[in-house]
């Protein structure tokens, strides 16, 4: 078992999909669920617990549809990660009506970091953001 397999912080989990991988983020608020979904996504690429928060990025977007907001949040993070040559391990997001403002911190890839599988993007498949008795849950399939 690799460090990546062991290091699965609370709030994140996965579900099966033939070719790709389903990610789930849970939290007390929709924002916490989105943050957990981002951790689940980036934990597929490396052991995010071993990352240093050397650099941070910020982002904002407008989206009224909360499910499309999840997809846009994850894909903006993936885009920024590639653009800046960074791998992220910490995430934060706030919602103000249709406006979403967030960010992430991490570091450039270094040889010692364990390599998982590259996430190409978040899809609309099995996409669901819902409030349950236990809190919020955000899920979708990511293409790897």
């Amino acid at each position, binding site marked *: *078992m*690799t460090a*990546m*397999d062991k290091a699965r912080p609370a709030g994140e989990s*996965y*579900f*099966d*999909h*033939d*070719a*790709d*991988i389903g990610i789930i983020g849970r939290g007390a608020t929709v924002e916490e669920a989105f943050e957990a979904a981002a951790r689940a996504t980036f934990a597929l*690429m*490396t052991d995010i617990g071993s990352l240093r928060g050397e650099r941070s990025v910020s982002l904002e977007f407008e989206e009224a549809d909360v499910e*499309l907001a999840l*997809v*846009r949040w994850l*894909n903006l993070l*993936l*885009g920024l990660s*590639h*653009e800046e*040559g960074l*791998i992220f391990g910490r995430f934060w997001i706030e919602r103000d009506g249709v406006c979403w403002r967030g960010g992430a911190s991490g570091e450039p*890839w270094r040889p010692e*970091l*364990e*390599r*998982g*599988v*590259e996430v*190409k*993007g*978040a*899809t*609309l*498949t099995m*996409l669901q953001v819902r409030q349950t008795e236990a809190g919020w849950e955000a899920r979708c*399939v990511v*293409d*790897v």
Partner: protein
Amino acid sequence: MELTRLKRIDEWSWTVPLAPGEKRSEVKLYGSRELLETMDDKVLQQITNVARLPGLVGPAMTMPDAHWGYGFPIGGVAAFDPDQGGIISAGGVGFDISCGIRCLRSNLELPQIAEFLPSLARELSEKIPAGVGEEGDLKLGIPELDQVLTGGARWAVKRGYGVPEDLDFIEERGCMSGPVPENVSAVAKKRQRGEMGTLGSGNHYLEVQVVDRIHDAAAAEAYGLHEGQIIVSIHCGSRGLGHQIGTEYLVSLAKAASRLGITLPDRELASAPINSPEGQEYIGAMNAAINCALANRQILAHLTRTAFARIIKGASLETLFDVSHNTCKAERHRVNGRERLLYIHRKGATRAFGPGHPDVPARYREIGQPVVIGGSMGTGSYILAGTAESEQRAFSSASHGAGRAMSRHQALKQWRGRQLVDELAAKGILIRTRSMRGVAEEAPGAYKDVDLVAEATERAGLARRVAFLRPKVCVKG
């Protein structure tokens, strides 16, 4: 898959009868009973959804290697007529636009290079950037990236990657027409700055293979193949640029569909009419991504040749063929005796033009287009030839790979990467990777039996088997 819902047409093809009141086009699934039984029920659900899209011509089809995808199933083929409200779907192309396989044939035979394989594996793994977070040596500014998007493999050859003869054996002669770099976002272009000439991860690979078995001697001769010969296959696509285009247009086309009154049975089938501004915008961006993929594989072919030359004196690698399997292309096909311009979505499916087709390179025209079914790293791959009957059966389409038989999560529970690498080494297959997790996810046992897929492809008349290739070295991302 529960076969009770299906009706058998013949031994190698099936359909799904309409339920009372159900409105959709025909669905056709190619494959043996054994292959279909192992497919997830969601394949059937997804291809039935495709059959509900407007402007579909002929059936919505799955190839024998089909598995559950997003929107379209992987291994899905569907043709749309722009003059009948036909649509273009980002989910019908996939995120890795123009993912495909470049096949190189060598002047080498296994016995003469067997002793060099460990050195070759090391050289290839050092020179081919592979895996998450890896960038290539080539860094491009936006203006030159725009040239990549319009020039494809031709741009790469001009830059000194490979030789002009390569272009004769690449689909579209190395350059897709109709790219619109302006339709590609700045983010997508920035993502690609360091990713030209990189392999990626997941199911992407570079394999050194040996021709293990010839099935069709005449076709093998035309393709320049013989038993014992060393072949190289490079499986990758349009990298970050294609992924970004896919993600951006998936959302914008989903919104466009809603605005244009297209009822989507699954939001992932995000679509717009081909003749709409939204549809044309995506097509321009997708064509640019196809050129990005063609250039990427051209650079990787060059890097492969350089690595071979360093290790094996006199090594020569010619392009056998380069074929994409995540595309939507405008093609002319005969339907009920009339030639029509159709947009053929092939998501995880290979174009397979038959003998005499003008787009098949002159050297292969009498035989048909080379088709590659990439297998898992522990089993093998097939080279096939397009058939005349594939035109009527599947708009000249065929399988693209072994197809997954289980999820990555299940594979991780069942295998350990290190153990697999050791077991394959004991069988004479050298795996070079930076991701043991990736190796476990891509375990040979996680895939369908490639022999069954290739046989079903042939028996269904989609393409005929020419040669079976056995892996010797596999560089994984």
